[in-house]
């Protein structure tokens, strides 16, 4: 059913809705990897719904007052529907609706709450036995009932990417999930979402006594991995055309090498690359090498200095995930500024917020509010309808899900947040959070507020007198 979408170039879909994707290169919607596991997620029980009279930030840059009609888990239309039949009507007058928020950078379930016990009890972020862990998948470490998922959901986050850590230059595949705690990861897995491939530049991924011990060593390691991926692709195509062309039995890029298979997936556009990288010089180096090998869909995370090279990122179609007010905690992050996101956006780069830590995972709207306000004070035009893209349609694009998520438009998944007020006010809260048209969180109804197994039966959480 969604197959036709997959052939559509991102530029076409987003140009129609967002109208500001300035990437010069067209980036194809990622095909899932052939070995990607199937999702066992099922939407919650749902009813067709009409949300009436809200201020709608559509995630595509638009703002209007109107109704949102949801049927069978999809957005049917946006406008006025006084005649709609067989729907549950929700009076949203005076409230705001946004797409469900998307967090491209979490360590949920692998930097597990509470962070007690030995390190092995709560931290499974990176396989760091070698510089290239492309064959490790962080999903195998995820504790799917991490309490943090439900807090993110209550904060309006409907989709989250769980990334491996930054301790090695290539730390493996990510997984994209819905934020409803479940007994298994497969039940949270976003159906048909591409996995991502995590990489890391800079300080975190430099080793004391084993390769790579330097930034130049990291680039050497990156090239080594990319060459393996290329060889893998050549070997595969040789196998397909029957001539064995490019096949090197026993070579690093041979068909039996799962690391090379993953890198090949990134080169072929099946795995969006997510690069942890703070400094402008590092970012420029890494994206030059990645693009040399044909990798197009790249998001730079924690990009504290991205504003210094905003036009470059815009030109190359690179996304950047930034914080509004984190800097100084290490040298790589000394030059962060609150206007980072606004400067990137002004240059036409695909810009987004991200949480990294669970405290911020339920405050993404406030992160965007701070970044937008800083931009306005610097004289840039950053109204709410623009800033909302930083936590909706732009992260959807980063994840390769822009044809289903991040905008309120006909045919899109009905992942929606009904806010008590302006989502960029600290006083507003999600009243209702919909995932695939079903109420996943209801602030007024305890029975629609998921909690983790961890929290069950803990006396500390019970009311006193």
């Amino acid at each position, binding site marked *: 059913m969604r197959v036709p979408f997959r052939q559509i170039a991102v530029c076409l879909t987003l140009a129609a809705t967002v109208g500001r994707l300035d990437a010069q290169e067209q980036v194809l919607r990622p095909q899932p990897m052939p070995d990607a596991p199937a999702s066992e997620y099922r939407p919650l029980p749902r009813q067709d719904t009409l949300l009436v009279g809200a201020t709608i930030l559509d995630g595509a840059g638009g703002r209007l007052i109107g109704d949102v009609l949801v049927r069978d888990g999809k957005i049917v239309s946006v406008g006025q529907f006084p005649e709609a039949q067989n729907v549950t009507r929700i009076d949203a007058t005076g409230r705001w609706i946004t797409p469900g928020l998307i967090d491209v950078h979490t360590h949920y379930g692998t930097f597990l*709450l509470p962070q007690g016990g030995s390190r092995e009890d709560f931290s499974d972020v990176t396989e760091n036995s070698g510089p290239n862990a492309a064959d490790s998948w962080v999903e195998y470490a995820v504790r799917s009932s991490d309490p943090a998922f439900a807090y993110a959901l209550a904060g309006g986050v409907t989709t989250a990417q769980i990334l491996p850590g930054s301790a090695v230059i290539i730390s493996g595949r990510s997984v994209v999930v819905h934020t409803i705690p479940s007994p298994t990861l497969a039940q949270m897995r976003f159906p048909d979402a591409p996995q991502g491939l995590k990489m890391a530049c800079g300080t975190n991924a430099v080793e004391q006594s084993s390769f790579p011990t330097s930034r130049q060593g990291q680039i050497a390691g990156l090239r080594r991995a990319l060459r393996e991926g290329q060889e893998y692709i050549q070997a595969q195509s040789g196998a397909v055309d029957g001539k064995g062309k490019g096949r090197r039995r026993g070579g690093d890029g041979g068909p039996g090498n799962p690391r090379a298979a993953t890198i090949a997936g990134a080169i072929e556009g099946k795995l969006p690359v997510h690069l942890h990288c703070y400094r402008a010089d590092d970012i420029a180096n890494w994206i030059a090498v990645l693009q040399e090998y044909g990798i197009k869909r790249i998001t730079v995370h924690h990009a504290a200095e991205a504003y210094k090279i905003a036009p470059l990122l815009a030109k190359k179609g690179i996304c950047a995930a930034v914080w509004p007010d*984190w*800097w100084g*905690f290490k040298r790589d992050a*000394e030059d962060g500024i609150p206007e980072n996101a606004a*400067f990137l956006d002004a240059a036409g780069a695909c810009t987004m917020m991200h949480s990294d830590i*669970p405290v911020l995972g339920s*405050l993404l709207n406030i992160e965007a509010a701070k970044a937008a306000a800083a931009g306005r004070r*610097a004289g840039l035009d950053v109204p709410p309808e623009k800033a909302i893209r930083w936590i909706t349609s732009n992260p959807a694009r980063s994840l390769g899900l822009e044809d289903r998520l991040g905008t309120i438009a006909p045919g899109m998944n009905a992942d929606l947040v009904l806010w008590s007020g302006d989502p960029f006010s600290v006083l507003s809260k999600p009243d209702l959070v919909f995932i695939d048209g079903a109420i996943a969180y209801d602030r007024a109804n305890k029975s629609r507020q998921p909690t983790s197994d961890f929290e069950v039966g*803990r006396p500390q959480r019970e009311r006193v007198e």
Partner: protein
Amino acid sequence: MRLLLLLLAIVISTPVRAETIAITNARLMDGDRDEPGMTIVLKDERILSVSRGGPIPSGARIVDAAGRPVTPSLAAAATQIGIVGIGSAEDTRDEAVTSGPAGAGFDISRAVDANDLTIQEARAQGLASAMIYPDAGNGVFAGKGAMLHLVPGRDPVSMADAAMFAAPSGKKAGGSRAAAWTLIRNGLTEARRPASPANGPRDDLLDPLDIEALRPVAAGRIPLAITANRESDIRQAIALAKDYGIRVVVVGGAEAWRVASALASSRIPVIIDPLDDLPFSYDAVGARRDNAAILAKAGVPIAFMVSAQGIYLSYDVGPALREGAGIAVANGLSRGEALRAITTAPSQVWTGRPPSGLVAGAAADLVVWDGDPLEPSSAPSRVFIAGREVSPVTRQTLLRDRYHPSRSGDALPPAYR
């Protein structure tokens, strides 16, 4: 020469003569007060008058607030500005001692770097005062915190030895928090004994440096700050205050809401992080966002710190405090209480003296905001500390200006801007 020294002494001891400033058309927000059309006159580091449209001394520089909110300047009840700069650079970090003999006697005030960017930034963000605290290092006593007053050009330390910090952590006491409580109690007991040459080193667990440092705590002159989140530890802190008749401040207090009435009747203040709601540790399983509202309703004195896993302990303290206060309001705290918790309450918590706020005679520390101060998207438009206007320029704003999109067509690279 003597005359010269005398003159020098006079110059040094005289308050800096700042200009007289009249802030007009201010929407004065101070605790529960919210009054438009106010005029606030600042002279010689203090507030000369606060009145509705009231008299403006001749020669005063007029700052038109244009109806914008004016609050007392921000205060951080527990922070590490000036003592932790770059997290990964050891020569910019002085917050804890993990080896050597220093314990309770560790005096953090001697490490404060007035030129640290965290102080420059905090000032521009509207923060005028703060308690800086040592992290637990060698044992259960982390050392002595200091109060800062961020008057530009002056030593920021306004009160050294302002509080003793202790952590009832099993890790710091050989493996059990019970032992930590025993050691904290023993410290106070030893500090109660008169100094006597008859007491040899073997009579005390603590060394003379630590005992001296604990005497003002045992005498009730400065508070003992106990960093604790778990209900059982908070109850121990209450019992300690009662048994020793000392002043106790609980820092952290994730589960303090469960002990609200006991804290209120013991008049023990709690410094909480209003962003806490996750079960981040087993000690904080009971964390919840209406902690502040429950405590305030019960009558517990509260003030705020905001950490976010340490990110905001040195950087962006100002906006983080306001975000925390806003979140507390969104979860049931009154606006007045929330504003107090990040302006006047911290000094009350630490010194025990009632806050003055924006009244005649009070320190001229105040901020004109470009919007609701409890919205993190607002920012200061003017900051005054000790009656002087503070520069809004920071390293971050200079980087902003260097790389502003309007400069992208410049012929020369950013290094020339």
